[in-house]
């Protein structure tokens, strides 16, 4: 599939203090599409300036204050809708996802006419221990609460249609966004599938740790009860 011809396909990249990785990440994505929206979530480093210099076609938005990954993703999705997007790809800015994997998710979404496609990482020894613990605890609990059955509920690489986004629009501002998306997708009986992806871990202190896992669990109860 020639992704450059996909005019209504947009990639959303939320970024917070990613000056070390953002250039490389964007240079890789730009090979597949020009429709890239970076949301700098109040970084205190040069993420915003670096992102702006990578390619003039990339839209770089800035949150004046750090709101969290969920809020940054929402801003990116809203921007994509303004630009007429029909397919939204959400990818992390720390370089842990490969754009070629993102394209596999896009292909599956289009081929099978799905609402949402989730990336699924393999829990091997490369994944930092605390992250692995947090993920497995959450995955187990989410299976109990949601109609969606995934082996990795915290992977940030996801592709969805703009109609699906409008329905599952999340409220969470932080890392709970991935879980809220799943719970909402289950609520609306969305057509979904998952695709196995490769992951490169550059920073073992970023991402979902066991502490985030506990916070997400508390939120999970809140979403189910309220």
């Amino acid at each position, binding site marked *: 599939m020639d992704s450059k011809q996909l005019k209504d396909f947009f990639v959303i990249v939320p970024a917070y203090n990613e000056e070390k990785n953002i250039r490389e990440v964007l240079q890789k994505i730009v090979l597949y599409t020009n429709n890239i929206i970076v*949301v700098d979530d109040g970084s205190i480093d040069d993420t915003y300036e670096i992102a*702006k210099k990578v390619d*003039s*076609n*990339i*839209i*770089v*938005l*800035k*949150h*004046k*204050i750090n*709101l969290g990954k969920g*809020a940054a993703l*929402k*801003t990116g999705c*809203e*921007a994509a809708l*303004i*630009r007429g997007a029909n397919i939204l790809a959400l990818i992390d800015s720390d370089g842990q996802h490969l754009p070629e994997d993102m394209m596999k998710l896009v292909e599956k979404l289009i081929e099978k006419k799905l609402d949402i496609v989730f990336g699924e990482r393999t829990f091997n020894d490369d994944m930092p221990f605390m992250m692995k613990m947090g993920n497995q605890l959450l995955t187990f609990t989410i299976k109990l609460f949601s109609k969606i059955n995934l082996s990795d509920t915290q992977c940030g690489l996801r592709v969805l249609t703009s109609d699906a986004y409008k329905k599952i629009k999340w409220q969470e*501002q932080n890392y709970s966004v991935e879980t809220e998306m799943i719970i909402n997708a289950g609520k609306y009986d969305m057509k979904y599938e998952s695709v196995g992806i490769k992951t490169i871990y550059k920073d073992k202190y970023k991402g979902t740790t066991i502490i985030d896992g506990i916070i997400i669990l508390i939120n999970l109860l809140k979403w189910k009860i309220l």
Partner: protein
Amino acid sequence: MILGVQIIGLIFGLFMAYFVFLNYSRKEFSKIQFIMWEIIWTVYVIFVLFPNITSGVVHRLGILRGMDFFTILGFMFVLYLSFSNYISILRIRRKLEDSTRKEALEGLKNKSNGEFNK
């Protein structure tokens, strides 16, 4: 005779009344808020100094001592404050998010990508 715990309660009540006055002087409280809070702390000080005035109500509620009644009231008040703070924080967070997003998206509709990034 005033008990030790009453002295602590009295000092706390007077300190809080002063704290309310300080906030009012800094114009952080309106006149109504100032009066309301001062009444609350004055009533608190009266109850601390004369715990027996609550005994009628306390016994009717099945509580043994005025102090227990006071502790229960205190817990209820703290729970109410926590809940009210939680709601306020949620509201502020939502407003902050909306306004930050609005600012980030400003101009996106009318400008091309290149123009937007300038």
